[in-house]
Every structure is written in structure tokens, then in C-alpha cells.
């Protein structure tokens, strides 16, 4: 019975972890290339959930359509913010870019609130469920898992196989070295920011495949916090590390919930956060650079 519950929760955790991981890759890409921490990260995830919500509720289309759309919206917004704000701060002290991304996050939240209102939104997208021996999975969650994996593979292939992806890796490894090879470093900055924001908004859509209720303009904060933990866990600056960090985070969060709920007299949900941070501490003690991080 316990084993069944645990494996059920771990399956959920694996899927949610893959989404978390996918949702952190954009943050890590931007950090890796520009050393800018996007404090407004969660707001872009929230924006993605609303893209999904709007596509499904107002246009009556399947939220699958929202995935490419969200990427395009995110890419465009990323380019816009880069051109007018972030691009001017690449040589400025870190505090400037922190404040700028914080402000951008607030801007996104307030504009979303202006359009959609501040009440909690949600929708039910039901395409059936699969019964496994230990749990029942809605098919949308399976979609979420598969799409997250595909996005990771696509990003990996782009970074490894294409000219622009290789150039981006070179900038991550050594900016000055990239410059002497004739790489246009400023263009790589713009590209990483646009793609990073594109991925992040897209991850919001995929998140609604897992949980499509409780959407509101201020929901992003919790995801920003998670993304920071996952980014550090997986290795700052490594998009692939972010994905594995996310999977571990999801597994620990859900697995510990099952185990903690066995102990009488405690509130398991609030303690899961303690456990995840504890695991983070241990991993950092063993590998200070995170799982796939480089110094």
C-alpha cells in the first residue's frame, strides 16, 4: 500500500520534475551566457499559463497550439526587453540587472492583471487517463512529460550541432575567447535572452498540462524560488544540468511528501520544502558547483 502510494507519487514527481527542469533551462541559459539572474523568471512562467488559458478558454483550441505560440511570444518579448533594457546593462554592476529583471517581472504581472483580472483562473482540459498498476495518470500529464523531454533534446541538439549553438557554448565557456574567434558576443547575448524567455513562457504552457487551476498573475513567485534552487542544484549556467536538477527536485518534493505523511502530527506539505532544501545543501556540500556545473 505504502509502496504503491510512493511509486505513484514518484511518478507524479518525475513528470512535475521534468516540467520544473524544462522551466529552469531558460533561466540557466541566460545566466550562463550573460551572468544575469532573471529575478522576474516566474512572471514569464505565469504568462505562459495565461497563454494556455486564453487559447483554451477564449479560442476553444487545444493548449498544444499554445506551445509554439508561447515560444514566439516569449522570444519576441525577450528580444524587446533585451533591445531596450537588458542589452544596455551587460557591462553594468549586477544590482542594475537584478533590479531591471525584477521590474520587468512586475510589469508582466501588472499587465496580465490588467487584462485578465486578479481572480484565480483555471480550466479543465480532459483527454482521458491511463491506469497504471500504482496510479492513474491523466493523458495531459503524459503529454507534458514527453514534450518537456523533446524540448530538452531540441535544446541540447541546438547547442551541440548548430553553428549558433556552438557559438553560444563558446560564450558560456569564455567570453573573451569567443570574441577573439570572431563571434559577435552581443548578438549571442540577445539570442540567449530571447530563447531563454521563449523557453520560459513555453514552460508555463506545459505547466498547465500538469495543473491547470489556480492561475493568477502573482503565481510566479513560487516558481522563481523553485527555479533558483533547481538552477543551483543542477549547476548554474548549464541548461542540461537545470533539467536534471528539476527532475531530482520533483522526485524529492513528491517522494518526501509520501514519507512525511506517515509521521503522525506533522503537516507534510510544508515540510517537503525543508527536505528539498536539505537535499540541496547535501548536494552542494559534495559538489559545490551543482550536478553539471562548471567553475
Amino acid at each position, binding site marked *: 500500500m505504502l509502496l504503491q502510494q510512493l511509486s505513484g507519487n514518484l511518478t507524479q514527481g518525475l513528470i512535475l520534475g521534468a516540467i520544473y527542469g524544462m522551466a529552469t533551462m531558460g533561466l540557466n541559459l541566460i545566466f550562463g551566457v550573460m551572468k544575469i539572474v532573471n529575478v522576474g523568471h516566474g512572471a514569464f512562467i505565469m504568462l505562459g499559463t495565461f497563454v494556455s488559458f486564453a487559447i483554451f478558454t477564449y479560442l476553444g483550441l487545444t493548449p498544444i497550439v499554445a506551445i509554439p505560440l508561447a515560444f514566439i511570444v516569449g522570444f519576441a518579448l525577450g528580444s524587446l526587453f533585451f533591445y531596450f533594457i537588458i542589452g544596455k546593462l551587460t557591462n553594468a554592476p549586477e544590482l542594475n540587472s537584478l533590479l531591471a529583471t525584477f521590474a520587468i517581472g512586475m510589469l508582466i504581472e501588472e499587465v496580465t492583471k490588467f487584462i485578465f483580472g486578479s481572480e484565480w483562473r483555471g480550466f479543465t482540459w480532459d483527454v482521458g487517463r491511463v491506469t497504471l498498476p500504482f496510479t492513474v495518470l491523466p493523458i495531459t500529464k503524459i503529454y507534458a512529460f514527453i514534450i518537456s523531454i523533446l524540448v530538452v533534446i531540441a535544446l541540447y541538439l541546438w547547442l551541440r550541432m548548430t*553553428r549558433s549553438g556552438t*557559438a553560444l557554448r563558446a560564450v558560456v*565557456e569564455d567570453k573573451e575567447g569567443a570574441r577573439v*574567434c570572431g563571434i559577435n558576443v552581443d548578438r549571442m547575448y540577445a539570442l540567449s535572452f530571447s530563447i531563454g524567455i521563449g523557453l520560459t513562457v513555453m514552460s508555463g504552457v506545459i505547466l498547465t498540462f500538469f495543473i491547470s487551476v489556480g492561475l493568477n498573475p502573482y503565481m510566479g513567485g513560487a516558481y522563481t524560488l523553485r527555479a533558483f534552487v533547481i538552477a543551483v542544484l543542477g549547476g548554474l549556467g548549464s541548461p542540461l544540468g537545470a533539467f536534471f536538477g528539476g527532475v531530482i527536485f520533483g522526485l524529492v518534493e513528491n517522494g518526501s511528501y509520501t514519507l512525511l505523511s506517515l509521521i503522525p502530527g506533522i503537516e507534510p506539505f510544508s515540510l517537503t520544502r525543508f527536505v528539498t532544501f536539505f537535499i540541496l545543501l547535501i548536494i552542494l556540500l559534495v559538489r559545490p558547483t551543482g550536478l553539471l556545473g562548471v567553475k
Partner: protein
Amino acid sequence: MIRGLLRFTLGRESEMLKVDNLESGYRPMQVLWGLNLEVKKGSITSLLGPNGAGKSTTLKTVFGSVLPWNGKILYEGMDITELPTHSKVEKGIVLVPEGRHLFPNMTVKENLIMGAYSEEAAKRQVESFELVYSLFPVLKERTKQRASSLSGGEQQMVAIGRALMVRPKIMMLDEPSQGLAPRLVIQVFEAIERMRGEIGLSVLFVEQNVETSLDISDYVYIMHEGSIKAEGTPKEIRALTDIREAYLGV
């Protein structure tokens, strides 16, 4: 007037790089105060001087990673003062930066491939690999090794090799002998001479290692406090005892 014109055209013919009254620095601190220098085609020119003279800043400003405040940089007679670094690389100007700046987690081969990033250079990649491996045979045995696992001397070879993959016409090297054992210093300087001999590369380099630099240079500039204090052939510089003692300590 006619003589002026003649000198202008002839000058263009042999000049690879000409720096005219260059000023730059790291705001608000000015480092270069009206610097003038020239690199003739196919020559090895060195820029010597004490620490903090602005030698590295000179190379970085010519390359464009530090922006010029004033003055002109001419390359084959063309004004390149305002060009961004990647355009300069495409035109054939390359810098081997101080500290090498290799891609630590990429292999030697991947590092070299990055040097051939521009489309022109990519077309000539195979030929470039042969050139680099003939100059530094040891790198051929290291192709699959990560750059960070190499010794200092090998890293410097990769840095020079990567710059060669660009197919440059002029290579600027910032303290190529820094941190190397004497035997390796000689190897690096030999490589510089061979590059000039084999592909007619023009070289401008900055060094602390005065004696060896004088040995291989065609022309020498002595720099102090952001401008040129003396210049001449190595022979002339060796004869200027007071200058040598004041600025080079030898």
C-alpha cells in the same frame, strides 16, 4: 604635394597596421595618451615596456575589446577604428589574449574549430588544421583532450593555433611567454618566426621578456605611461643605453 602623394601610396603598400594618436582606457581612467605605431607587412613588431605602461590596453583597443576614445586605427589603409571585434576578425585581425582564454571544457580540436568560426575561415578549416599541426605537432596527440587538462605551454600553443585558424593577416599576441618555462618560451617565439616565414603573417606582440623579444623583432616600440617613448630596430634599441635602463631594466 606629389612627393606627399607618392609617400602616401607607398606607405599604404607596406603598412599593415597604423595607429594614429590613439587614446583609450577604462572610464574614468585614461590609459593611452596619444599613441602612434605602425606594423609593416610581414614584419614582427614588438611593444615593450614596464608593467602598467598600457601595452595590453593598446592591443585590446586595436582589437576593439576596449573602445577607442580618440584617434585612428588604419588597417591596410582602411579606417577600422569603429569596427566591432567580429568584423575585425573577419578582415584578418586576431588577438591571442593574455591568459589565453581557451574554452576549458572543449577539447583541443573543438577549440581550434571555434577559431574557424567565420564563414571564410570555415571553408579553409582542413588546410588550417594542417598548418597548426605542422607548427605544433604535440597538439595532434592532444586533439581529444580537454583544453583545461593541458600544460601551460600546450595551452599557449592552442591559443596561437586557434588564432591561426582564423586565417589572419595580422596576429597580436599579449605576453605569449607569460608563465612558461624557458624552453617553451623559445618554442613559442620560434613558432612566431615560422608563422611569419611560412604564411607571411604580420605580428605585433607585447612582452616582458625583453632579450628574446629583441632577438626576433624587426622593429621595437618602447612604451611608458600610455605613449611611445622610443622606437627603432632592435640594434638601435640596444644602443640606447639610457632608454633601456629607464624603461626595460636591462
